[in-house]
């Protein structure tokens, strides 16, 4: 059995750069290249696309990436694993197979993993007495949103990925597996680990490493507080890690690529979106981020060891998306002199326009851009003296409504400001109203989730 494998991070989100992934595949000497394409909202957007076109519903990039990478991956002996199947892994896998055939890569084995889409099973769960309580707020009135539900995807563990790799898949296309299952899967497959008591700490280590690299350049200098010390971020290297059978690992990147890896860049991403660091809950296991140790392992290389964990949770997280009205938004900018006063006057005028247009809104929210858009009440307003010297100030208004018609009044009121507003009022393009999908996260028993794997051959 191998004592160590190397995994690369090929994508941190749908919208990431592809060239660093290609560089990693080419020069990283990888056993696996893994891609996270999904975010909480993505599933609802993809579900809506699938409702319009039954052959859609996956992340288009997921197919484009596989098309671009399969030839080199075969040469390098690297297997590709993604969750870009979204709400239609079958259609994505079929598209990947077509691309493989077109490229003459006959015999390429493409595994698809289904079973996370529970949109059709909500009533089954309700009938079985699963309360679908909102896990963050404790709300129990799911019935009130039942008719507006548009998506329901459960974060699944890496069992389907392990099975796919056991079935000799070259490419794995999953749906809503957890972000780090695309890393935990190949690790558990390689070392033959099970989700059992004997492997708790080692699986937790895989979960922790998966977390550290899953946003790709976010641990190699992206999003850094020390942004001024990160070289060539436009040519940043994505991370790889050597994972050892004892649960320790070294994280590195391709020599000569942009960005940086040091203990600080790793710490920065360790703390990202983890909630309680003692209990980082994933379907494969629970990692204790307060247990691990970091140490230097050479230039742009950090060693991670000592991760402890807890058994995988009994319940899985199901995120239900539901239609929840519309948001209308408008932005304008105002010049020196008296920029802030102009913006305040425009706010008043906008409110008067809303009144005239009879706007019915659930929420009306104003920001002064350059002043308090990002920190709200935590941002001190400028003193009159400071305000007098501001070069420019923007006004943003965002309004939540029940209907598109109401949201569109915000666009109209914004346009009215073109002439009714203070002198110097300037605009970009008007913003169209957008539909809102709100999320209802809940916990369900594992018994309702059955992953299904199928291997297609090019």
């Amino acid at each position, binding site marked *: 059995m191998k004592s160590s494998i190397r995994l690369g991070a090929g994508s941190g989100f749908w919208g990431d750069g592809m060239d660093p992934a290609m560089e990693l595949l080419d020069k990283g000497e990888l056993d696996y290249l893994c891609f996270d394409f999904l975010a*909480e*909202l993505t599933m*609802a957007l993809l579900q809506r696309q699938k409702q319009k076109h039954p052959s859609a519903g996956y992340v288009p990039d997921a197919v484009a990436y596989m098309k671009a990478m399969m030839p080199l991956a075969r040469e390098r002996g690297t297997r590709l694993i993604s969750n870009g199947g979204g709400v239609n892994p079958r259609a994505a896998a079929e598209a990947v197979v077509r691309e493989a055939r077109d490229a003459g890569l006959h015999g390429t084995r493409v595994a698809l993993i289904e079973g996370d889409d529970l949109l059709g099973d909500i009533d089954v769960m309700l009938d079985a007495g699963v309360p679908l309580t909102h896990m*963050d*707020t404790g709300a129990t009135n799911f019935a009130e949103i039942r008719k507006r539900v548009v998506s329901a995807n459960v974060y699944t563990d890496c069992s389907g990925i392990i099975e796919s790799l056991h079935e000799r898949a070259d490419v794995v296309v999953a749906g809503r597996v957890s972000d780090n299952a695309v890393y935990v899967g190949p690790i558990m497959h390689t070392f033959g680990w099970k989700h059992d008591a004997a492997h708790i700490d080692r699986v937790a280590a895989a979960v922790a490493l998966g977390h550290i690299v899953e946003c790709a350049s976010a641990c190699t200098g992206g*999003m850094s*507080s*020390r942004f001024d010390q990160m070289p060539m971020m436009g040519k940043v290297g994505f991370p790889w890690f050597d994972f050892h059978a004892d649960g320790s690992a070294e994280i590195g990147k391709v020599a000569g690529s942009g960005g940086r890896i040091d203990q*600080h860049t790793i*710490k*920065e*991403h*360790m*703390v*990202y*979106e*983890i*909630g*309680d*660091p*003692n209990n980082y809950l994933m379907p494969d296991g629970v990692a204790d*981020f*307060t*247990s*691990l*140790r*970091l140490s230097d392992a050479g230039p742009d290389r950090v060693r991670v060891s000592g991760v402890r964990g807890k058994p995988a949770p009994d319940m899985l997280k199901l995120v239900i*998306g539901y239609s*929840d009205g519309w*948001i209308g*938004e408008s932005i304008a900018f105002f010049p020196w002199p008296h920029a802030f006063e102009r913006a305040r006057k425009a706010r008043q005028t906008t409110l008067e326009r809303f009144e005239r247009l009879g706007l019915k809104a659930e*929420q009306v*929210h104003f*920001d002064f851009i350059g002043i308090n*858009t*990002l*920190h*709200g*009440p*935590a*941002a001190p307003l400028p003193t009159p003296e400071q305000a007098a010297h501001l070069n420019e100030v923007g006004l*943003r208004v*965002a*309004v*939540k409504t029940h209907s598109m018609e109401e949201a569109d009044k915000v666009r109209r009121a914004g346009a009215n400001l073109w002439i009714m507003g203070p002198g110097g009022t300037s605009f970009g393009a008007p913003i169209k109203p957008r539909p*809102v*999908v*709100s*999320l209802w*996260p809940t916990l369900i028993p594992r018994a309702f989730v059955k992953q299904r794997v199928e291997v297609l051959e090019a």
Partner: protein
Amino acid sequence: MATATQPRLLADIAYVRSGDKGNICSAGLIAKSPELYPLLLASVTPERVRALYGEWVTGQVTCYPMDNIEALMVVMRGALGGGATCTVRLDQTGKAMGHALLRLPVVELD
């Protein structure tokens, strides 16, 4: 440099990275050096965080120390105006929001 009248701010002793999970904003503060870690712990409390954000944070705030990396997780519930998909704020995923924590004055230890 700090003076008697001008307290140091958290920005002087810590870095931050924040993001979202539903309507929860999770912000990790990292001490710029190990000796600053006790100051970080002393300076950030749920009460001070609630007071800083006012109506922007409507739920419980919990702080979790991470002694192994000299960091502090600040988990703020009801902090994103409903969550990334439905908030009327520009910073939908709370990436900028955590940086406001750096405005907190440092509690100097003797």
